[in-house]
């Protein structure tokens, strides 16, 4: 066992298929109970990374440990402790939802019938599928299959969850339910979640840290705030005033932590070194200088803007 506080540790993780490098020297750690996002365009290597971590593919180079177990040498142990939602729901269409759940629960070692039935009931109830439990999965909609596949991934209470596009094919209500569930699993149950997604709003809301990958390699990694500061430099504070008098503008310019001020009618755009620390002082200063503050807004780039800047711009530059 290594990395007591890290559930997932990779070092130089690489996968090549003949001359094609699908994943290129990825090194990262995911802490216990953390929701970690991997973002990237199609073919970036997200699914291959998950497959290596779930002991489905053998890395060409590098190492990976999940829950302290080597994904190559302890592959059975790794598979026992992870739950995986694959790219496709991977469900048996000719079997009913109940038969699918029973099969996977037993395959993952939930051998006690009572425990199994209770867990399956709980999950199917949560995903609103209990009333359709005896229907063949082939008759399910795409969204229902996706929910059942997530339920299957959770049936053995895994320590680590690998979710590949979990909200794909789901309506907004179901997507929200899944996001709430992930937050709860991470916060209350301490489950570690590795989330691969295109949906940047999912990553922005859920992930404590994200890694952007492109063409198999890491572009950047950090908290969303760290990524924002990487691309946006200093944050901008927009202050709408009743009137932008010279006295107020001068007072703002002279404040500590203010880098520049631009005036557009009654709107001040203020570049700050540390928005969280400076903003309260700045608002107080404006009021003391006789300004009437109507609204204050810190402009931060969204994860989508970060993604477009770091991944799409990189592609276009090549």
């Amino acid at each position, binding site marked *: 066992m290594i990395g007591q506080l890290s559930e997932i540790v990779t070092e130089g993780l690489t996968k090549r298929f003949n001359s094609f490098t699908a994943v290129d020297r990825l090194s990262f750690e995911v802490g216990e109970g953390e929701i970690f996002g991997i973002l990237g365009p199609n073919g970036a290597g997200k699914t291959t990374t998950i497959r290596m971590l779930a002991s*489905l593919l053998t890395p060409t180079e590098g190492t990976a440990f999940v829950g302290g177990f080597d994904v190559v040498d302890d592959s059975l142990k790794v598979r026992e402790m992870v739950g*995986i939602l*694959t790219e*496709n729901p*991977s*469900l048996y269409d000719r*079997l009913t939802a109940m038969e699918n759940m029973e099969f996977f629960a037993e395959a993952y070692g939930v051998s006690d019938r009572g425990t199994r039935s209770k867990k399956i009931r709980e999950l199917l109830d949560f995903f609103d599928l209990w009333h359709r439990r005896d229907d063949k999965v082939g008759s399910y909609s795409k969204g229902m299959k996706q929910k059942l596949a997530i339920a299957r991934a959770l049936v053995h209470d895994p320590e680590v969850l690998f979710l590949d596009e979990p909200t794909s094919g789901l309506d907004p209500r179901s997507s929200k339910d899944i996001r709430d569930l992930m937050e709860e699993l991470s916060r209350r149950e301490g489950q570690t979640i590795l989330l691969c997604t295109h949906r940047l709003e999912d990553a922005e809301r859920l992930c404590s840290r994200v890694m952007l990958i492109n063409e198999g390699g890491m572009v950047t990694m950090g908290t969303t705030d760290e990524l924002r500061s990487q691309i946006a430099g200093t944050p901008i504070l927009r202050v709408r005033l009743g009137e932008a008098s010279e006295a107020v503008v001068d007072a703002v310019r002279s404040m500590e932590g203010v880098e520049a001020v631009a005036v557009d009618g009654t709107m001040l755009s203020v570049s700050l070194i540390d928005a969280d620390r400076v903003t309260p002082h700045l608002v107080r200063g404006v009021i003391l200088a006789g300004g009437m503050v109507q609204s204050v807004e810190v402009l931060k780039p969204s994860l989508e803007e970060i993604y477009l800047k770091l991944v799409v711009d990189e592609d276009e530059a090549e």
Partner: protein
Amino acid sequence: MRLSRALLVFRKDWREVGRNWEILTPITLVPLLFSVVMPLIVISAPGQINTGASPEVLIESILRGAPTDVIEMLAGFTEDQQLTYVLLVYMFATFFLLIPVMASSVIASDSFAGEKERKTIEALLATPLTDGELLLGKILASFVPAMGVTILSFIAYTVVVDVGTYGTFGVILLPTLEWFLFIFLMTPALSIAAIGLTVLISSRVKGFKEAQQISVVLVVPIIGLLIGQGTGVLTLGPPMILVITALLAFFDLLIFRFSVLLFKREKVLTTWK
């Protein structure tokens, strides 16, 4: 290897096979042809069957190894009646080797290749089932229905033959010792060998149809046996059946061992249609 886990895979596949008409149709119709239609044709018009050898040669070569009481019993019958006896009691046993091989090749071809086509393979491979448990489960899922169909066909065939020929011969012809050995020893041993090879092929090709096309070659040795018997070159008596069964059993062990060694989850997952 935990047998309970292999049985879990077997039960899952068993349920799936039972609801798949693409599989159920061939494994029902072909045995029906061998166990009901063909014996009825022989009983009603034995002269219409062409075995590749003249009736005299066939009757003479097969009855050469038959017990004295059978030879004495047949002495008073016409050539057509003797031919009916030889075909139904001796020749058709070899056809029964085709039933489990055909049935198991249809099911086994579907095992991994079918899961790839239906995109269910990844979740199965992600489970903590060992390679041996997965393979044994898949082999059992083909073996049990294949042998079930074979035994049911054998019962149907016995009834058709005995009812259809009692008026002519005045005795119950089947079952004989050779048939018992054939159905309960040689057929299972051959079936396991065929399934083991087909499952292995199925895990390494892209789709169900490709697996089935390759596994058709497994029928070739049986056709050889049929020709050998039909031309009078080979007589499958009890000693010969036991020797072939022992060889097949040894072959079964080799195939299973070899299959486990060659089975690679990554190969199964990445050889994708």
